Structures are given as C-alpha cells and as structure tokens.
C-alpha cells in the first residue's frame, strides 16, 4: 500500500493506493482515483518554467508542457529549454520547443510577449 497526497486540486486528499491492483481509496473525486493510479504506474507532472526571450519588455517568458511529463524527466526538461531563445512577439500556446526529449510533448508559451 502506498500513501500519498493527491495534487490534482488544492483540497489535497490523502490517498492510499494498492500497488498490486491499482485500487485507490481516500479520493473525493474520479480525478483523484486517476491520479493515485498514475502516480504508482507512471508519475507525471506538468512542467512549468521560463525561457529566454529577446525584444520583449522582460528577459524571460513563462512556459509549460502541453501535457504532463514523466516526473523523473523534469530536471532534464529544464536543462533542455536553456538552449531556447524566443523572439518577441510570441502568443500563448506557441511552441517554444517541440517534442521535448522525444516525449511527443511540446513546451508552450503561456503569456503574450
């Protein structure tokens, strides 16, 4: 049995997950159940960070991964986007880096700059 805090919403339910069967208890909603199961089988997080940008009023622009990324890859993603420099203007949703680390997931801009 694995115990964890659900991170899907600010409520922070205490989940218990059976590693063998993937059964989740302690959740208050279906999203919590899905989170508990994926946390055992394939833990993932949405990456958020910043990338360099030129020509905007600020030197950094905020980005996120277009889908949750495997948790152990987060540090690698951070290193990977160090090489990116955006040129203003960019719009939210524009890809800053496509298919990051071959995951099929893009790093996208979250603010118009």
């Amino acid at each position, binding site marked *: 049995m694995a115990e964890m805090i659900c991170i899907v919403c600010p409520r922070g339910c*205490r989940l218990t997950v059976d590693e063998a069967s993937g059964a989740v208890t302690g959740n208050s909603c279906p999203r919590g159940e899905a989170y508990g199961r994926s946390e055992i089988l394939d833990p993932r997080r949405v990456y958020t960070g910043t990338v360099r940008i030129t020509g905007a009023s600020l030197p950094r622009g905020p980005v*996120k991964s277009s889908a949750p990324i495997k948790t152990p890859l987060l540090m690698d993603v951070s290193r990977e986007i160090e090489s990116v420099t955006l040129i203003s203007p960019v719009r*939210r949703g524009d890809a800053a880096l496509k298919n990051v680390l071959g995951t099929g997931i893009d790093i996208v801009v*979250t603010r118009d700059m």
Partner: protein
Amino acid sequence: MNWELIVIGAGPAGLAAALAAYDKGLRKIAIIERDRYAGGILNQCIHNGFGLHRFKEELTGPEYALKFIDRLRDTTIELICDTMVLHITPDRQVHTVSAEKGYQVYSASSIFLAMGCRERPRGAISIPGDRPAGVFTAGTAQRYINLEGYMCAKRVVILGSGDIGLIMARRLTLEGAKVLCCVEIMPHSSGLARNIAQCLKDFDIPLYLNHTVTDVTAANGRVSSVTVSRVDANRAPIPGTEMVFDCDTLLLSVGLIPENELSREAGIEIDPRTNGPFVYENMETSMKGVFAGGNVVHVHDLVDYVSEESAKAGEGAARFVSSAENADEAYIRMLNGDNVSYTVPQRIRPGRLEGSVKLFFRVRSKLGASVIKVSDASGQELASFKRLSMSPGEMENIFLPKEVFQKARGDISVSASEA
C-alpha cells in the same frame, strides 16, 4: 472628468471587480496599476494550479490573468499603468503620480481597493545573526527568477512553509540550485498539502517541522551559513539541536500582510484580525462608496475566491453608483467564536441582502471531523455545518441564507469544534 469607478490595482481582484461592474452597466471605469502591465502577482506565478474552481481547468498564473485581461479589450474600461496611487480621500478623490503625467487627481463616484498584500519581511520576525546580502522573501526571489531573469541563489535554506516558499523550492531546484531544506516553526505546514507533495517530496527536499533559524553568518557580505534549531512547545529554540547549513541564500516565506497604507490614511476602519478593512456583505468598507476585495481584505489561498469576492464587490459598486444605495442601515457584526480567527465579511446589513451570504473564515488550529456552529447573542443556534477536517492553512466558507440574519437577535458568532 468624473469616473464611475476607480479600481486601485490591476491584479486578479481589480480585474474581476472592474469587469463585474462593467457587466452591471458602469461604463466609466479606470484601473490604476503601479506596474507596467495588468495581472499583478499572477505574472510571476508561472506554475499551474489556478482556476480549477472558476474555469474547471488547470491554468498557470499568466494564463489565469489573461482570461480577464483579454476581456478588457471589449470594454470601455481604461487601464492606466505605471501609475502609483498616493492618497485616497473620503470624497473619493484619487491622487496619483506617474513619470508620464506627473501628479494627477482623479475623482470617482466609487472606489475599489485591490492593492493586494506584501510579504512579511525579515525585520518582522527578528532572526538573529548578520545582515548580509542573500536574504530574500520568497516572492522577491520569484520575481527575480521568473520575470527579470536573475538567478539569485545556489544553495538555499527556506524559512517558513507558506505556498510561495514551497513553490520556490521546486523552482530553484529546476533552475539548478540546491535547496537544502525547508524549515517551519509550527508543528504543521501553512502551505497546501499538494505543494508539500509536488514541490518538496518530488525533489527529496526535507521539511523540518518544529524548527526555526537561529543564526545567519556572512562571508564577504553574502550569506555563508544558516543555523537551524528545534523548538520546544513554546516555540523557543532548544540548545544542542543546532544544524548548520552552508548556503548563500535564505528565503523567507513567513506570511503575508494586506497592504492598507492607503486605506488607513483615508480613515477606513481596519480589522485587527485580518489587517484588512472591515467589509459589509457587498464588500463595502466603512467609507461610503469605497469597496475592497482580494488579499487587501484578507489573505486568500486560492485566486478563484479572490475573483469571486471581487466580482461581488464590483457589482456592489455598480449598484451604489446607479441607485445611490447609500443610506445608513443597521448591521449585524460577525464575531469569532471558539477556534475561529476571523470572518469576512465582518458586517451584514440584513436590509441589503438579496440572496445568501458566502462567509469566509479560518480556524485557529488543525481540527479533525468537526462542526461549524453559527449562533446569535442570545445563544440561539442559527445554522450548523459539518467538515471532515479543517486547518488554519485552508480558508473555509459557508453559505448563510438571508433568513439567518432576519432570525438573529444581536450579533452572530461562528465557532468550530471537533465532533
């Protein structure tokens, strides 16, 4: 020119109030913002987790702000940036200064206060030791790293386990710094449980509860080490429990204070429990036609509630302007009962109520399965609610129907106790 509504601050509270007032028919609305652009603190909160309540999706801070900023374009709301408000007066004059226009005085039929809050600084918590560079509030470091592009730390100790501190533990780690630990004087974290999980546990950052910082040393003017000690039940450091961390940075995440210099100076009554203005059911302050919402009233955990509360205030301002709803009316005071540290709103005018009142409050200590009781001065119980658990770090809310206030004899108190 007379504005119908002047909003002070273009963060989430100011944006929501201005748009709500516009939707209720006001057209001459100005938002005055001291920064270069709208969005307030959301612009530096680049992490996700915003908007789950309001938009049923998980947004980053900038994305949440854009949901509101985008709407401004389709309105006549005027956004005045790079402008600092210096004074407000009881006859609703707003004194401002900006590099472009110099000293300007605007007059308004109503004002909405949305100045937000500030972080508690080092001076407010008396940490012993040297006074070197390298001691930042967590939000200052967040601004340096996320907006201005300065990586301001290599090896870090974080004092306080508020949400911004936890978020910065992850952020600094992802940017290549080593976060040595997060230190909390209380036996429980003041941050959300999910932030402990995704910001500390994901990166194996230790959280020391019942510990505090007892010394800071410096070399060449920069932090060189931080000493952390365990505290006893009275929160006094226990000699012999010291741990010394070699580091160059100490981040403080030790609470937020509503920013009410303008309100105080104008003579608006401030609630010592929240450090924000006393507000009525429609978020009007003690000064007629001056409304307030968001973190300037009380510190929120979730921006979704800031938007909701401020929209209510914006509607209140629109009603004030259009119907001159400004007669003095009797009000019921909302008082702390056992285990409750404050309520917002603090004052309810039963004559002004249309539907129910959403009452926000916090408990003083962690409670398991509990009952929230609402009763009047005569001891009559007016309403009760059940909760599975409550914690000071998580704001609670209850809906009180209009009838509760019609039935009440005297002031109302809200209490919480374990069932």
